[in-house]
C-alpha cells in the first residue's frame, strides 16, 4: 500500500489554513440567510398581501433549483446584469471589482433564506394557538405578541433544524471552489492535482470535514441541553 502518509499529515495544516474562508462563507450566509428567512417567515405568517404570494413562489423556486445552478446564476448572471447597467449609465464595469467570494456568499444566503423561512414557518405554526389568544385577551399588539411570546417559543422549536441547516452550509461551502473561491476544498484540489496524490488528499479532506461536522454537532447538542434546562417546555 504505497500511501504517502507523511504527505497526508503535511497537507493538513495547508488545507486548514483555508478554514477561515470556509467559516466565513458558512457563518455569514447563515446569518444573512437566517435574518432574511425570518423576515420571510413573518411575512407569510401574517399573510401580508402580495408579499405572501411572492415569497411562496420565491421559496419554492429557491428550494427547487439545485444549489450549483444558483451559484452559477450568481457568478455569471449578476456580473452580466451589473455590466449591462454600468454600460447603460456609462461607467466602468463594476463587476470586475467584486470578488467571487461575494457572489458565493450571496448565492448561499439566498439559498439559506428559503430553507430558514420554512423552518420558522413550521415552528410558528406548531405553537399552541391559545398563546396568541391570551396575548390578544390582555391587549397586546401583534408586535408585542410576536416579540415577547411567539418568537421565543418558536426559536426553541426551530433551533435543532437551524443547526442542521448550518452544518449543511458548511458542507455546501465546498461548492464555492468551482467559482474560484479559495476555501478548503479548493486548496485540496490544487494540492491533489500537483502530484496526483488524489487518494491521500481527498481522504484527508473528507476526514477534516467529517470531524468538523461531528465536533460542531457535539457542541450544539451540549448547548441545547444547557439551554433547555432553564426553560421548561409545556
Amino acid at each position, binding site marked *: 500500500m504505497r500511501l504517502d502518509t507523511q504527505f497526508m499529515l503535511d497537507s493538513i495544516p495547508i488545507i486548514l489554513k483555508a478554514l477561515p474562508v470556509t467559516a466565513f462563507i458558512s457563518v455569514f450566509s447563515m446569518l444573512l440567510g437566517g435574518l432574511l428567512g425570518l423576515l420571510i417567515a413573518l411575512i407569510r405568517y401574517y399573510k401580508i398581501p402580495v408579499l405572501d404570494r411572492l415569497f411562496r413562489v420565491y421559496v419554492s423556486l429557491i428550494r427547487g433549483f439545485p444549489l450549483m445552478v444558483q451559484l452559477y446564476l450568481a457568478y455569471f448572471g449578476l456580473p452580466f446584469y451589473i455590466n449591462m447597467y454600468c454600460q447603460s449609465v456609462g461607467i466602468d464595469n463594476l463587476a470586475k471589482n467584486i470578488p467571487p467570494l461575494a457572489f458565493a456568499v450571496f448565492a448561499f444566503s439566498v439559498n439559506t433564506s428559503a430553507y430558514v423561512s420554512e423552518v420558522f414557518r413550521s415552528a410558528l405554526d406548531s405553537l*399552541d394557538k391559545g398563546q396568541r389568544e391570551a396575548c*390578544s385577551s*390582555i*391587549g397586546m399588539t401583534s408586535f408585542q405578541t410576536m416579540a*415577547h411570546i411567539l418568537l*421565543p417559543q418558536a426559536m426553541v422549536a426551530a433551533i435543532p433544524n437551524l443547526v442542521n441547516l448550518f452544518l449543511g452550509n458548511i458542507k455546501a461551502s465546498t461548492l464555492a471552489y468551482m467559482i474560484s473561491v479559495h476555501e478548503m476544498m479548493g486548496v485540496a484540489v490544487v494540492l491533489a492535482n500537483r502530484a496526483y496524490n488524489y487518494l491521500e488528499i481527498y481522504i484527508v479532506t473528507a476526514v477534516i470535514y467529517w470531524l468538523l461536522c461531528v465536533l460542531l454537532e457535539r457542541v450544539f447538542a451540549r448547548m441545547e441541553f444547557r439551554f433547555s434546562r432553564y426553560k*421548561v417546555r409545556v
Partner: protein
Amino acid sequence: MIRVTNVHKKFKDLEVLRGVDLEVKDGEVISILGPSGSGKTTLLRCINFLEKADEGEMEIGDRKYSLKYATKKQKLEVQRKTAMVFQLNNLFANKTVLENVTIGLTVVQKMNKADARRVAVRYLEKVGLGDRLSSYPAQLSGGQQQRVGIARALALNPSVILFDEPTSALDPELVGEVLSVIRQVAEEHITMVIVTHEMAFARDISDKVVFMDGGVVVESGTPEDIFLNPQKERTVQFLQRFRQVGEAVK
C-alpha cells in the same frame, strides 16, 4: 357597564348566535349557562374580539363599538379594558408565574418594573401562589395554572373579567380550589361574566343568571328565578339534567 345587543355569528353554515343581547352592570356577576353548542363561549369571545361577530353592537362604559366593523385600534382598546380566563389557561409557556402576571402590566399598561412586580405579587398571593413566583407553568398543576390565569386577569384591573368555562378542563379534585378563588373575586364586586357548567356554584355567586340555548337567550333572571322558578320549557329540561346537583347542594 357592558352591553352587547343583537349579536349574530355564523361558522360556515352553522348559525351559532342568532341575535343575543346581554347587559352587565358594574360590579355585577353574571353566569351564562346552557348546553354545549348554545353559543355561550362564542358570545364571550365576540366581546373581546377573539371572534368577529357578523352583526352586533357593544357599549363599554360610555364608548360604543360595532362588533363587526371595529377597527384594529378599537379592538385593542377593548382588549385592554377586558381580561379573559380561558378553559385551557393559556399561560405563557416561556415565562415564569410572576412574569405571566407582570407582562401585561409592563408591556401593555407600560407600568415600571417595580410597581408591576408589587401588583403581581399581591394578586398571586391572593390566589395562593405567592410561593411559586419563579416556577414555569409546566411545573404547576392544572388548578394552580388556572389560578395564575385568574391573577393575570385581576392584575390588569379590567372593566370586566370574562371566564370561559374555567374549570371544565380540570381534574375534579382541582376544581374546588379554582372555584373558591373565583368566589373570592366575586365577593369583591368585580364585574364578571362566567360561562360555566358548575350549576351550584353559578347559583351561589351570581347576581344574575342567563340561560342560552341554540344561539339565543332563552331566559334570564336572578338565581332564584332561574333555578326555582324557570318559565321556559327549555330551561326546565336543561335543569332536569342537573336536578340531582341542585337538590343535593340545597
